[in-house]
């Protein structure tokens, strides 16, 4: 049976700007997790912050059975999480959710905005090891919003900042190549929407990772549903169960 399991934090890293990484060691998870998947994490005790929070898989080091959660402190729950230390235990459920669909026949373009980098960290490693052609576009406000620069330097990564203090200057969408690609994107809704629109009239397919406030992460509460175009029309579809990765063409963007 799948269940919440107490995992020990084996390492912790503070990036600047309220970003942190927590590391855990668990072979069961590293064996099966794939980019796109996420975890539900109980952040505090059962009471004050009652709902578990969803976090994507970030880096994975299969040889050490280590995986990483990378997050930004935005509220109560992430605050509590940021105060845990090496050795502390956290209750984790997962991996849950679907996967980013890699395409072997087309070039894969990964587009990450801000903390949306998480799924593409491991994905880059997988694609490289399987010799699948890809480029990662990674944008943020300024240099301090771009993390993992060393790790990403091994891959074909294009950094873009709005201020231009690191990498290219401007918005990510200004640098995207035209053509027929397999696009995968994760980041603010507005960015993903623009990426989708950029390729809307091309042969490219665009896959986006949606976010919504979650209750269960197991598909039972219908709290995380968003409007998605289905064969039977627009429906409220559960992000945690049918997603979080959706075909951009099926997303009702104006919500």
């Amino acid at each position, binding site marked *: *049976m*799948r*269940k*919440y399991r107490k995992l020990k934090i084996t390492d912790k890293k503070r990036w600047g700007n309220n970003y942190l990484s927590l590391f855990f060691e668990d072979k069961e998870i590293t064996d099966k997790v794939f980019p796109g998947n996420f975890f539900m994490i*109980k952040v505090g005790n*059962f*009471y*004050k*912050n*009652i*709902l*578990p929070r969803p976090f994507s898989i970030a880096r994975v080091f299969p040889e050490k059975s280590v995986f990483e959660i990378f997050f930004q402190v935005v509220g109560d729950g992430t605050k509590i999480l940021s105060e845990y230390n090496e050795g502390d235990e956290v209750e984790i*459920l997962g991996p849950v959710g679907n996967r980013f669909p890699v395409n072997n026949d087309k070039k894969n373009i990964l587009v990450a905005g801000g903390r949306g980098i998480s799924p593409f960290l491991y994905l880059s490693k997988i694609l490289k090891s399987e010799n699948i052609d890809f480029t990662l576009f990674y944008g943020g406000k300024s240099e301090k919003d771009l993390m993992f620069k060393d790790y990403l330097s091994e891959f074909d990564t294009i950094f873009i900042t709005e201020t231009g203090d690191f990498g290219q200057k401007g918005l990510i969408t200004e640098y995207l190549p035209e053509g027929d690609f397999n696009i995968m994107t994760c980041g603010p809704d507005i960015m993903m929407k623009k990426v989708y629109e950029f390729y809307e009239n091309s042969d490219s397919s665009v896959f986006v990772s949606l976010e*919504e*406030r*979650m*209750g*269960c992460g*197991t*598909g*039972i*509460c*219908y*709290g*995380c*549903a*968003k*409007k998605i175009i289905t064969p039977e029309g*627009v*429906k*409220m579809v559960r992000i945690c*169960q049918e997603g979080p990765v959706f075909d951009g063409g099926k997303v009702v963007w104006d*919500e």
Partner: protein
Amino acid sequence: MSKPDLSVKFGKLKFKNPVILASGTAGYGYELENYIDLNELGGFITKGIYFNPRSGNPSPRIYETPCGMLNAIGLQGIGVKRFKSEILPFWKKYKTILGVNVAGEDEDEYKRVVEYLKDEKRIDFFEINLSCPNVHAGGKSPSWEPETTYKIIKSIKNISDKPIIAKLSPSVTYIEEIGESAEKGGADGISLVNTFVGMAIDIKSRKARISNVLGGVSGPAIKPMALALVYKLHKTVKIPIMGLGGINSAEDVLEFIIAGASVVQIGTASIIDPAASIKIIKSVEKEMVELNYKKIEKLIGKMEK
């Protein structure tokens, strides 16, 4: 020490233990198959269904509140046809007592749902949801009115042989009056409580935190209120009560039973941890051994002065 007896008779139903998964907080059942053995439950109540499929409210639908949560799912559901063809077959492999939570825009729709499902052998009882705060304005629901409560239950009662449980709203002045109306209408039992009407505001955007503005509050926060309502209702009606509202431990279960519930339901706790119900069943057993209680049925409504 011999195992305590957790079984409870509830009218015609006989639950092997008093812990039932509540409607809307456990999906249709199949979602939980990888998380718990559904056969270990006392019972299971499926997500509320209308006659037709229904898409529910737009997002955002949930928000966290102190020791609780606010939801306005708005009874998204697959409708009776798909329920019959997709969900009931799934349940054939389990023996757990199965209740179907029935919703309706009006009196007639409740009837049509029960009518459509009345001969389904796999269904053990109908729980009539007279209390969803997320459909009508102001959080209003049918069980805010004794008359409406009576009429809806009465109109369904003779359609089916299966027990009819009226699920009531806690956001009322006189729960006794509403409970009596359900009883008079022919209800075989009462589920109490559904969620309390509640709200939260984002002070920056000045918008409600959930799209429906008002929502339903559930979780530990509501437990003392839910318990008081069950206690009051138990003194009033003769039909048995399924008690719920914030239950998250063996202690909570026993409090509801001592206050007058015959069985209990677990809602929000199961959202937060899919295995909560099973953990709770096990610890009820342990707690009873510790307190030297032998038969849970004997505790129903047994408060001391």
